[in-house]
């Protein structure tokens, strides 16, 4: 077993002739919270989607606990139960209640009994503060509530890592806080997290590392205080200047 959860080496992803990821190298340790920032179109989503194999990498290697996830013999479905994903648009199952949303994966993929799945789902719905709403359908919830259910859905699989792709970008401003609070809790509980975000305060306060992606490569990778206070790459400085100025 390797000490790293992920070891990513020279990851390349092309869409046709468009080279979107141009060789990404990154290693992530157990319990690390890595924020990924960067301009729109720099390849952040594509990077996360390659990690979950929603996109097939064109080249390079992604090792999960030392195992190459693109190997033919690699069990993708069991891997995905370990590496959850939370999307900007929530992607809940519209035909199911909140409870069922958090049970169905456990029952079908992990083959857990109904009782076991329910107990586990309730545990995590409690954790994200949605236990009151188990009978509601997604269409009856606010964006923030939906996102918390989506987080519980991944947690209920007893995942080890969650990949967040702009989890608060589709939310009304007053709902961003409740989701970030849940994420902060998870970070403190030791979950390994990769978070693509435009919430610079979250990146600064919660993450153990911040990565600045620029044009398909990792342009800078350092502790949050270094990235935000004294970035070495002029592109990082430029990006932060734009983002933070806009925000203030």
């Amino acid at each position, binding site marked *: 077993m390797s000490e790293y959860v992920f070891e990513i080496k020279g990851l390349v992803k092309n869409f046709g002739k468009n080279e979107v990821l141009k060789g990404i190298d990154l290693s992530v340790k157990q319990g690390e919270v890595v924020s990924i920032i960067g301009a729109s179109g720099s390849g952040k989503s594509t990077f996360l989607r390659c990690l*979950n194999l*929603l996109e097939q990498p064109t080249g390079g290697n992604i090792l999960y606990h030392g195992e190459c996830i693109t190997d*033919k013999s690699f069990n*993708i*479905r*069991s*891997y*995905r*139960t370990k590496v*959850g*994903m939370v*999307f900007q*648009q*929530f*992607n*809940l*199952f*519209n*035909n*199911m*209640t909140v409870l069922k949303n958090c049970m*169905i*994966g456990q029952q*079908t*993929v992990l083959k857990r009994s109904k009782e076991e799945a329910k107990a586990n789902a309730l545990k995590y719905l409690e954790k994200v503060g949605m*236990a*009151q*709403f*188990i*009978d*509601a*359908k997604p*269409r*009856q919830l606010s964006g923030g509530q939906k996102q918390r259910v*989506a987080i519980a*859905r*991944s947690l209920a*699989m007893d995942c080890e890592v969650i990949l967040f792709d702009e989890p608060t970008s589709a939310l009304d401003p007053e709902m961003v806080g409740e989701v970030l609070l849940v994420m902060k809790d998870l970070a403190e509980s030791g979950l390994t997290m990769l978070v693509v975000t435009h919430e610079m305060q979250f990146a600064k306060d919660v993450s153990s590392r911040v990565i600045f992606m620029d044009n398909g490569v990792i342009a800078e990778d350092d502790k949050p205080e270094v990235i935000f206070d004294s970035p070495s790459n002029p592109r990082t400085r430029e990006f932060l200047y734009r983002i933070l100025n806009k925000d203030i």
Partner: protein
Amino acid sequence: MSFFEKIAYIWQKYSATLFSGVGTTILLALVGTLMGLLIGILIGIVRTLPPSKNKFVNGLMKVVNFILAIYIEVFRGTPMMVQAMVIFYGYAKLTGIMLPVIASGLVIVSINTGAYMAEIVRGGIISIDKGQFEGAQSIGMSHWQLMFHVIIPQVLRNILPSVSNEFVINIKDTSVLNVIYVTELFFMAKLTASDTNMVLETYVIVSVMYLAMTFTVTRLLRLVERLLEGKNNYTIHGSQSDPRAEIKVTKEA
């Protein structure tokens, strides 16, 4: 005899004959629509399979998809009456055995409807947002699992008006199966008309029977539609002040 006397006469002497035709027509339309829907769903699931890592499986998929495309084109592009003739007499010629007519009828309506349903289901699947597929994949669900538990239930609800439409079409269009001697309503009507020589009156009665069937089916399926929409209310378990509170909420989509 006046028009109404003739109607009364036919009703008295031939209603049993005509109603047995009604029974057969309903059987054909019901089985044809349900089997057609099943065929449509299976095709829909197969055609949306993600590409496999295995080259051989991928090649096989291409062949299967090609055959399915031909099936859909052929059965949507030729009249059911012609399909009935070709299948019924073709089968007899190839095997030397005559299929029972009712079995032939059921098979023909089913595969004919299946070709239409395949397209209806495909439209239904496309209309579900891609995010729900990815949400299911991201927790490890297989294509069949996510289709069965997440996508198809929503597709069924969305395409119900089209399914209802196919059902109504089947009630009417199975009349063409009289060419292979299926004893559905139109076949029985022809029999009655030639027995009694009261053509107009027979077909007036038969029109009313068709109308009664189609009307009932549309209303019934409208009801099913409403049931499938599901509850719009739910219960919140516990509030900030009282953890045991049960609050009923009614909130529209």
